[in-house]
Protein backbone atom coordinates (compact mmCIF):
# COMPACT_ATOMS: atom_id res chain seq x y z
CA UNK A 1 0.00 0.00 0.00
CA UNK A 2 1.62 3.19 -1.16
CA UNK A 3 1.84 6.26 1.04
CA UNK A 4 -0.40 9.18 0.11
CA UNK A 5 -0.42 12.91 0.76
CA UNK A 6 -2.62 13.64 3.77
CA UNK A 7 -5.12 16.49 3.49
CA UNK A 8 -4.61 19.51 5.69
CA UNK A 9 -7.25 20.30 8.31
CA UNK A 10 -7.10 23.96 7.26
CA UNK A 11 -6.98 26.06 4.08
CA UNK A 12 -3.59 27.15 2.73
CA UNK A 13 -4.26 30.76 3.76
CA UNK A 14 -5.42 29.85 7.28
CA UNK A 15 -2.04 30.42 8.92
CA UNK A 16 -1.67 33.99 7.61
CA UNK A 17 -0.03 36.27 8.48
CA UNK A 18 2.38 33.93 10.26
CA UNK A 19 2.94 31.39 7.50
CA UNK A 20 2.04 32.62 4.03
CA UNK A 21 -0.38 30.92 1.65
CA UNK A 22 2.12 30.30 -1.14
CA UNK A 23 4.57 28.64 1.23
CA UNK A 24 1.83 26.33 2.57
CA UNK A 25 0.78 25.43 -0.96
CA UNK A 26 4.27 24.65 -2.22
CA UNK A 27 5.32 23.01 1.04
CA UNK A 28 2.36 20.62 0.96
CA UNK A 29 1.84 19.90 -2.76
CA UNK A 30 5.49 19.99 -3.88
CA UNK A 31 7.96 19.29 -1.07
CA UNK A 32 5.88 16.84 0.97
CA UNK A 33 4.51 15.17 -2.18
CA UNK A 34 8.04 14.65 -3.49
CA UNK A 35 9.06 12.80 -0.33
CA UNK A 36 6.03 10.54 -0.72
CA UNK A 37 6.71 9.89 -4.41
CA UNK A 38 10.33 9.07 -3.68
CA UNK A 39 9.69 6.71 -0.77
CA UNK A 40 6.94 4.93 -2.72
CA UNK A 41 9.28 4.47 -5.67
CA UNK A 42 12.04 3.16 -3.43
CA UNK A 43 9.77 0.66 -1.69
CA UNK A 44 7.97 -0.53 -4.83
CA UNK A 45 9.98 -3.76 -4.85
CA UNK A 46 9.90 -4.08 -1.06
CA UNK A 47 6.21 -4.36 -0.14
CA UNK A 48 7.05 -5.85 3.26
CA UNK A 49 8.84 -2.62 4.16
CA UNK A 50 6.03 -0.42 2.89
CA UNK A 51 3.57 -2.48 4.93
CA UNK A 52 5.51 -1.59 8.12
CA UNK A 53 3.72 1.73 8.08
CA UNK A 54 5.44 5.07 8.19
CA UNK A 55 6.15 5.10 11.94
CA UNK A 56 7.82 1.69 12.04
CA UNK A 57 9.65 2.52 8.83
CA UNK A 58 11.15 5.56 10.57
CA UNK A 59 11.96 3.47 13.65
CA UNK A 60 13.89 1.12 11.36
CA UNK A 61 16.17 3.83 9.92
CA UNK A 62 19.77 2.90 10.67
CA UNK A 63 18.94 -0.75 11.39
CA UNK A 64 19.51 -3.68 9.07
CA UNK A 65 15.76 -4.05 8.63
CA UNK A 66 16.31 -1.68 5.71
CA UNK A 67 18.57 -2.93 2.89
CA UNK A 68 21.77 -0.91 2.46
CA UNK A 69 20.86 0.28 -1.01
CA UNK A 70 17.62 1.81 0.34
CA UNK A 71 19.02 3.26 3.56
CA UNK A 72 19.58 6.84 2.37
CA UNK A 73 16.42 7.22 0.31
CA UNK A 74 14.26 5.82 3.13
CA UNK A 75 15.94 8.03 5.74
CA UNK A 76 15.47 11.18 3.67
CA UNK A 77 12.06 10.50 2.16
CA UNK A 78 10.46 8.21 4.75
CA UNK A 79 11.65 10.74 7.30
CA UNK A 80 10.35 13.62 5.20
CA UNK A 81 6.94 11.99 4.86
CA UNK A 82 6.50 11.33 8.58
CA UNK A 83 7.88 14.74 9.57
CA UNK A 84 5.55 16.71 7.34
CA UNK A 85 2.51 14.56 8.12
CA UNK A 86 3.18 15.19 11.81
CA UNK A 87 3.84 18.90 11.21
CA UNK A 88 0.58 19.66 9.40
CA UNK A 89 -1.33 18.27 12.38
CA UNK A 90 0.36 20.52 14.94
CA UNK A 91 -0.52 23.64 12.95
CA UNK A 92 -3.83 25.49 12.98
CA UNK A 93 -5.38 28.89 12.31
CA UNK A 94 -4.25 31.50 14.86
CA UNK A 95 -7.84 31.90 16.10
CA UNK A 96 -7.82 28.18 16.87
CA UNK A 97 -4.51 28.18 18.71
CA UNK A 98 -5.24 27.89 22.41
CA UNK A 99 -2.81 26.49 24.96
CA UNK A 100 -1.46 23.37 26.63
CA UNK A 101 -3.75 21.20 28.72
CA UNK A 102 -3.29 21.29 32.49
CA UNK A 103 -1.37 18.00 32.34
CA UNK A 104 0.91 19.16 29.56
CA UNK A 105 1.48 22.50 31.29
CA UNK A 106 2.45 20.68 34.47
CA UNK A 107 4.90 18.53 32.53
CA UNK A 108 6.34 21.62 30.82
CA UNK A 109 6.78 23.43 34.12
CA UNK A 110 8.38 20.36 35.68
CA UNK A 111 10.81 19.83 32.80
CA UNK A 112 11.65 23.43 31.85
CA UNK A 113 10.37 25.74 34.60
CA UNK A 114 7.71 27.54 32.61
CA UNK A 115 6.17 27.97 29.15
CA UNK A 116 8.53 30.87 28.54
CA UNK A 117 11.48 28.68 29.39
CA UNK A 118 10.18 26.00 27.02
CA UNK A 119 9.87 28.54 24.23
CA UNK A 120 13.34 29.94 24.87
CA UNK A 121 14.91 26.49 24.69
CA UNK A 122 12.84 25.38 21.72
CA UNK A 123 13.56 28.59 19.82
CA UNK A 124 17.28 28.19 20.51
CA UNK A 125 17.24 24.63 19.16
CA UNK A 126 15.38 25.80 16.07
CA UNK A 127 17.67 28.81 15.51
CA UNK A 128 20.95 27.00 15.99
CA UNK A 129 20.19 23.96 13.82
CA UNK A 130 22.76 24.64 11.10
CA UNK A 131 21.58 23.97 7.56
CA UNK A 132 18.35 22.05 7.08
CA UNK A 133 16.50 20.28 9.85
CA UNK A 134 13.81 20.28 12.50
CA UNK A 135 13.32 21.27 16.13
CA UNK A 136 11.34 18.99 18.42
CA UNK A 137 9.63 18.92 21.79
CA UNK A 138 9.17 15.35 22.91
CA UNK A 139 8.97 12.86 25.73
CA UNK A 140 12.13 11.17 26.88
CA UNK A 141 12.20 7.51 27.89
CA UNK A 142 12.07 8.59 31.56
CA UNK A 143 8.77 10.41 31.00
CA UNK A 144 10.15 13.94 31.25
CA UNK A 145 10.00 16.36 28.33
CA UNK A 146 13.03 17.29 26.28
CA UNK A 147 14.00 19.43 23.31
CA UNK A 148 16.23 18.44 20.44
CA UNK A 149 16.94 19.26 16.84
CA UNK A 150 17.70 16.90 13.99
CA UNK A 151 19.42 17.45 10.63
CA UNK A 152 17.77 17.16 7.23
CA UNK A 153 14.73 14.84 7.47
CA UNK A 154 15.82 12.91 10.54
CA UNK A 155 13.48 12.79 13.53
CA UNK A 156 13.74 11.57 17.15
CA UNK A 157 11.92 8.30 16.28
CA UNK A 158 14.96 7.19 14.30
CA UNK A 159 17.66 5.09 15.96
CA UNK A 160 20.21 7.35 14.22
CA UNK A 161 18.99 10.43 16.10
CA UNK A 162 21.16 11.89 18.88
CA UNK A 163 18.19 12.12 21.24
CA UNK A 164 15.36 9.61 21.28
CA UNK A 165 12.10 11.32 22.09
CA UNK A 166 8.48 10.62 21.29
CA UNK A 167 7.67 13.77 19.31
CA UNK A 168 4.93 16.01 20.67
CA UNK A 169 5.63 19.23 18.74
CA UNK A 170 7.90 19.88 15.78
CA UNK A 171 9.01 22.79 13.61
CA UNK A 172 10.45 22.60 10.10
CA UNK A 173 13.45 24.93 9.80
CA UNK A 174 14.44 24.02 6.24
CA UNK A 175 14.62 27.29 4.33
CA UNK A 176 11.69 26.21 2.14
CA UNK A 177 9.50 26.41 5.25
CA UNK A 178 9.97 30.16 5.61
CA UNK A 179 12.08 31.76 2.89
CA UNK A 180 9.35 33.32 0.73
CA UNK A 181 8.06 35.40 3.65
CA UNK A 182 10.99 35.64 6.07
CA UNK A 183 14.05 35.20 3.82
CA UNK A 184 17.09 34.82 6.07
CA UNK A 185 15.16 35.89 9.17
CA UNK A 186 14.62 32.44 10.65
CA UNK A 187 14.23 33.72 14.26
CA UNK A 188 11.23 35.81 13.12
CA UNK A 189 9.60 32.72 11.60
CA UNK A 190 10.26 30.73 14.76
CA UNK A 191 8.65 33.42 16.91
CA UNK A 192 5.65 33.59 14.55
CA UNK A 193 5.19 29.80 14.71
CA UNK A 194 3.88 29.97 18.28
CA UNK A 195 0.78 31.79 16.97
CA UNK A 196 -0.28 28.81 14.88
CA UNK A 197 0.42 25.88 17.18
CA UNK A 198 -2.48 23.44 17.35
CA UNK A 199 -2.44 22.84 21.09
CA UNK A 200 -5.38 20.42 20.87
CA UNK A 201 -3.21 18.14 18.78
CA UNK A 202 -0.12 18.74 20.90
CA UNK A 203 -2.15 17.84 24.00
CA UNK A 204 -3.30 14.64 22.26
CA UNK A 205 0.29 13.87 21.26
CA UNK A 206 1.33 14.30 24.89
CA UNK A 207 -1.44 12.00 26.10
CA UNK A 208 -0.39 9.35 23.57
CA UNK A 209 3.25 9.65 24.69
CA UNK A 210 2.26 9.34 28.35
CA UNK A 211 0.53 6.10 27.38
CA UNK A 212 3.74 4.87 25.73
CA UNK A 213 2.52 5.37 22.17
CA UNK A 214 3.80 7.39 19.22
CA UNK A 215 1.18 10.02 18.26
CA UNK A 216 -0.97 8.77 15.42
CA UNK A 217 -0.97 10.65 12.15
Amino acid at each position, binding site marked *: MAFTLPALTFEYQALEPYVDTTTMQ*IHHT*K*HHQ*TYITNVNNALEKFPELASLGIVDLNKAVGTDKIPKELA*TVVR*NNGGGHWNHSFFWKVLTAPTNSNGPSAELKAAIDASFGSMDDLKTKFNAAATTR*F*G*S*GWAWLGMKPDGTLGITST*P*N*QDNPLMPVADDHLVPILGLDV*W*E*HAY*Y*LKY*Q*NRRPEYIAAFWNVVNWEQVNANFTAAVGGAVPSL
Partner: protein
Amino acid sequence: MALQFAAQRLLLLKETYVVASRGVATFKLPELSYDFGALEPFISGKIMELHVTKHHAAYVNNLNNALAQYAEAESKGDVAKMIALQGAIKFNGGGHVNHDIFWTNLISPKDFRPPSGELLQKIESQWKSIDNFKTTFSAASAGVQGSGWGWLGYNKGADRLEIVTLPNQDPLSTTGLVPLLGVDVWEHAYYLDYKNVRPDYLKAIWNVVNWKNIEDRLAAAKK
Protein backbone atom coordinates in the same frame (compact mmCIF):
# COMPACT_ATOMS: atom_id res chain seq x y z
CA MET B 1 72.97 28.70 43.00
CA ALA B 2 69.50 29.14 44.48
CA LEU B 3 69.09 32.36 42.47
CA GLN B 4 70.08 30.53 39.28
CA PHE B 5 67.47 27.82 39.87
CA ALA B 6 64.84 30.43 40.67
CA ALA B 7 65.62 32.28 37.46
CA GLN B 8 65.37 29.07 35.43
CA ARG B 9 62.07 28.18 37.08
CA LEU B 10 60.70 31.65 36.31
CA LEU B 11 61.67 31.17 32.66
CA LEU B 12 59.93 27.78 32.53
CA LEU B 13 56.82 29.22 34.18
CA LYS B 14 56.80 32.06 31.68
CA GLU B 15 56.91 29.63 28.77
CA THR B 16 54.11 27.54 30.19
CA TYR B 17 51.71 30.24 31.31
CA VAL B 18 52.37 33.30 29.20
CA VAL B 19 50.50 32.78 25.97
CA ALA B 20 52.21 34.39 23.04
CA SER B 21 49.92 36.93 21.42
CA ARG B 22 48.69 35.88 17.98
CA GLY B 23 47.23 38.03 15.30
CA VAL B 24 43.45 37.75 15.32
CA ALA B 25 42.15 38.02 11.79
CA THR B 26 39.06 40.04 11.00
CA PHE B 27 37.32 38.73 7.93
CA LYS B 28 35.40 41.02 5.61
CA LEU B 29 32.60 40.69 3.15
CA PRO B 30 34.14 40.91 -0.34
CA GLU B 31 33.04 43.34 -3.01
CA LEU B 32 31.54 41.72 -6.05
CA SER B 33 32.87 42.67 -9.48
CA TYR B 34 29.28 43.04 -10.76
CA ASP B 35 25.98 44.55 -9.60
CA PHE B 36 23.45 42.40 -7.79
CA GLY B 37 21.20 42.50 -10.85
CA ALA B 38 23.92 41.50 -13.30
CA LEU B 39 23.04 37.81 -13.35
CA GLU B 40 19.42 38.32 -14.35
CA PRO B 41 17.32 36.61 -15.50
CA PHE B 42 19.11 33.49 -14.30
CA ILE B 43 19.66 34.60 -10.72
CA SER B 44 17.61 37.57 -9.58
CA GLY B 45 19.04 40.74 -8.09
CA LYS B 46 16.79 40.13 -5.09
CA ILE B 47 18.45 36.78 -4.39
CA MET B 48 21.94 38.17 -4.97
CA GLU B 49 21.37 41.07 -2.59
CA LEU B 50 20.01 38.84 0.17
CA HIS B 51 22.63 36.21 -0.46
CA VAL B 52 25.54 38.64 -0.12
CA THR B 53 24.31 41.23 2.37
CA LYS B 54 22.43 38.85 4.69
CA HIS B 55 23.64 35.27 4.35
CA HIS B 56 27.31 35.78 3.51
CA ALA B 57 27.49 38.77 5.85
CA ALA B 58 26.14 36.63 8.70
CA TYR B 59 28.85 34.02 8.11
CA VAL B 60 31.49 36.76 8.20
CA ASN B 61 30.10 38.32 11.40
CA ASN B 62 29.62 34.98 13.11
CA LEU B 63 33.10 33.86 12.08
CA ASN B 64 34.67 37.02 13.50
CA ASN B 65 32.69 36.61 16.73
CA ALA B 66 33.65 32.97 17.07
CA LEU B 67 37.30 33.79 16.50
CA ALA B 68 37.20 36.62 19.04
CA GLN B 69 35.69 34.23 21.58
CA TYR B 70 38.27 31.62 20.62
CA ALA B 71 41.12 34.07 21.20
CA GLU B 72 39.71 34.97 24.60
CA ALA B 73 39.27 31.33 25.55
CA GLU B 74 42.80 30.59 24.41
CA SER B 75 44.23 33.47 26.45
CA LYS B 76 42.53 31.98 29.51
CA GLY B 77 43.72 28.49 28.66
CA ASP B 78 40.08 27.38 28.43
CA VAL B 79 40.54 24.42 26.10
CA ALA B 80 36.99 23.17 26.63
CA LYS B 81 35.65 26.47 25.31
CA MET B 82 38.08 26.39 22.39
CA ILE B 83 36.78 22.94 21.44
CA ALA B 84 33.15 24.02 21.88
CA LEU B 85 33.73 26.87 19.41
CA GLN B 86 35.08 24.67 16.64
CA GLY B 87 31.64 23.92 15.20
CA ALA B 88 30.89 27.62 14.82
CA ILE B 89 34.30 28.22 13.22
CA LYS B 90 33.72 25.40 10.74
CA PHE B 91 30.16 26.46 9.85
CA ASN B 92 30.87 30.13 9.50
CA GLY B 93 34.44 29.88 8.23
CA GLY B 94 33.29 27.38 5.63
CA GLY B 95 30.35 29.63 4.77
CA HIS B 96 32.68 32.57 4.25
CA VAL B 97 35.23 30.65 2.18
CA ASN B 98 32.59 29.00 0.03
CA HIS B 99 30.71 32.18 -0.79
CA ASP B 100 33.94 34.07 -1.39
CA ILE B 101 34.75 31.57 -4.13
CA PHE B 102 31.19 31.44 -5.47
CA TRP B 103 30.94 35.17 -6.26
CA THR B 104 34.07 34.94 -8.41
CA ASN B 105 32.68 31.87 -10.19
CA LEU B 106 29.77 33.92 -11.56
CA ILE B 107 29.62 36.50 -14.35
CA SER B 108 27.01 38.55 -16.17
CA PRO B 109 25.47 36.57 -19.05
CA LYS B 110 26.50 39.33 -21.43
CA ASP B 111 30.15 38.69 -20.51
CA PHE B 112 29.81 34.91 -20.70
CA ARG B 113 32.54 33.01 -22.56
CA PRO B 114 32.72 29.24 -22.93
CA PRO B 115 35.60 27.26 -21.40
CA SER B 116 38.91 26.97 -23.22
CA GLY B 117 42.48 25.77 -22.89
CA GLU B 118 43.54 23.11 -20.43
CA LEU B 119 40.27 23.27 -18.50
CA LEU B 120 38.27 22.45 -21.64
CA GLN B 121 40.73 19.72 -22.53
CA LYS B 122 40.46 18.09 -19.12
CA ILE B 123 36.66 18.31 -19.04
CA GLU B 124 36.36 16.76 -22.47
CA SER B 125 38.83 14.00 -21.70
CA GLN B 126 37.06 13.10 -18.46
CA TRP B 127 33.39 13.68 -19.38
CA LYS B 128 33.45 13.45 -23.20
CA SER B 129 31.81 16.87 -23.60
CA ILE B 130 30.96 20.08 -21.79
CA ASP B 131 27.28 19.16 -22.00
CA ASN B 132 27.88 15.81 -20.39
CA PHE B 133 29.96 17.46 -17.68
CA LYS B 134 27.19 19.96 -16.97
CA THR B 135 24.56 17.22 -16.81
CA THR B 136 26.71 15.18 -14.43
CA PHE B 137 27.54 18.16 -12.22
CA SER B 138 23.92 19.31 -12.09
CA ALA B 139 22.64 15.83 -11.26
CA ALA B 140 25.13 15.49 -8.41
CA SER B 141 24.26 18.93 -7.08
CA ALA B 142 20.51 18.29 -7.38
CA GLY B 143 20.98 15.16 -5.31
CA VAL B 144 22.41 16.95 -2.27
CA GLN B 145 20.11 16.18 0.66
CA GLY B 146 19.24 19.29 2.59
CA SER B 147 21.79 22.09 2.39
CA GLY B 148 25.16 21.89 0.70
CA TRP B 149 27.30 22.60 -2.35
CA GLY B 150 28.30 21.01 -5.62
CA TRP B 151 31.98 21.38 -6.47
CA LEU B 152 34.33 20.94 -9.36
CA GLY B 153 37.69 20.36 -7.69
CA TYR B 154 41.21 19.74 -8.84
CA ASN B 155 43.07 16.71 -7.58
CA LYS B 156 46.65 17.90 -7.78
CA GLY B 157 48.23 14.54 -7.06
CA ALA B 158 46.33 12.77 -9.83
CA ASP B 159 46.16 15.83 -12.11
CA ARG B 160 42.43 15.22 -12.50
CA LEU B 161 39.21 17.12 -12.06
CA GLU B 162 36.57 15.70 -9.72
CA ILE B 163 32.93 16.45 -9.04
CA VAL B 164 32.14 16.32 -5.35
CA THR B 165 29.21 17.37 -3.17
CA LEU B 166 29.49 18.43 0.44
CA PRO B 167 26.90 19.07 3.15
CA ASN B 168 26.13 22.36 4.87
CA GLN B 169 29.14 24.72 4.64
CA ASP B 170 31.87 22.10 4.70
CA PRO B 171 34.64 23.61 2.56
CA LEU B 172 36.22 21.66 -0.28
CA SER B 173 39.54 21.90 1.52
CA THR B 174 38.30 19.10 3.78
CA THR B 175 38.65 16.73 0.80
CA GLY B 176 42.11 17.84 -0.28
CA LEU B 177 40.80 19.07 -3.62
CA VAL B 178 41.43 22.61 -4.88
CA PRO B 179 38.13 24.41 -5.46
CA LEU B 180 37.55 25.51 -9.06
CA LEU B 181 33.76 25.92 -9.25
CA GLY B 182 31.28 25.84 -6.40
CA VAL B 183 27.50 25.92 -6.77
CA ASP B 184 25.45 26.73 -3.68
CA VAL B 185 22.39 24.46 -3.43
CA TRP B 186 21.14 25.74 -0.07
CA GLU B 187 17.52 26.71 -0.71
CA HIS B 188 18.36 30.36 -0.03
CA ALA B 189 20.47 30.31 -3.21
CA TYR B 190 17.47 29.78 -5.48
CA TYR B 191 14.14 29.57 -3.68
CA LEU B 192 12.78 33.04 -4.46
CA ASP B 193 13.33 32.40 -8.20
CA TYR B 194 12.89 28.65 -8.60
CA LYS B 195 10.94 27.51 -5.50
CA ASN B 196 11.32 23.76 -5.01
CA VAL B 197 12.59 23.19 -8.55
CA ARG B 198 16.30 22.97 -7.82
CA PRO B 199 17.05 21.29 -11.18
CA ASP B 200 15.80 24.40 -13.03
CA TYR B 201 18.24 26.56 -11.05
CA LEU B 202 21.02 24.10 -11.88
CA LYS B 203 20.20 24.39 -15.58
CA ALA B 204 20.01 28.17 -15.52
CA ILE B 205 23.23 28.76 -13.62
CA TRP B 206 25.38 27.56 -16.53
CA ASN B 207 24.49 30.84 -18.27
CA VAL B 208 26.34 32.80 -15.62
CA VAL B 209 29.33 30.58 -14.88
CA ASN B 210 32.63 32.45 -15.20
CA TRP B 211 34.73 29.87 -17.02
CA LYS B 212 37.73 32.23 -17.18
CA ASN B 213 37.80 32.33 -13.38
CA ILE B 214 37.73 28.53 -13.26
CA GLU B 215 40.58 28.37 -15.81
CA ASP B 216 42.58 30.81 -13.70
CA ARG B 217 41.98 28.75 -10.58
CA LEU B 218 43.15 25.61 -12.34
CA ALA B 219 46.28 27.35 -13.59
CA ALA B 220 47.04 28.66 -10.11
CA ALA B 221 46.52 25.21 -8.61
CA LYS B 222 48.98 23.67 -11.01
CA LYS B 223 51.82 26.02 -10.07
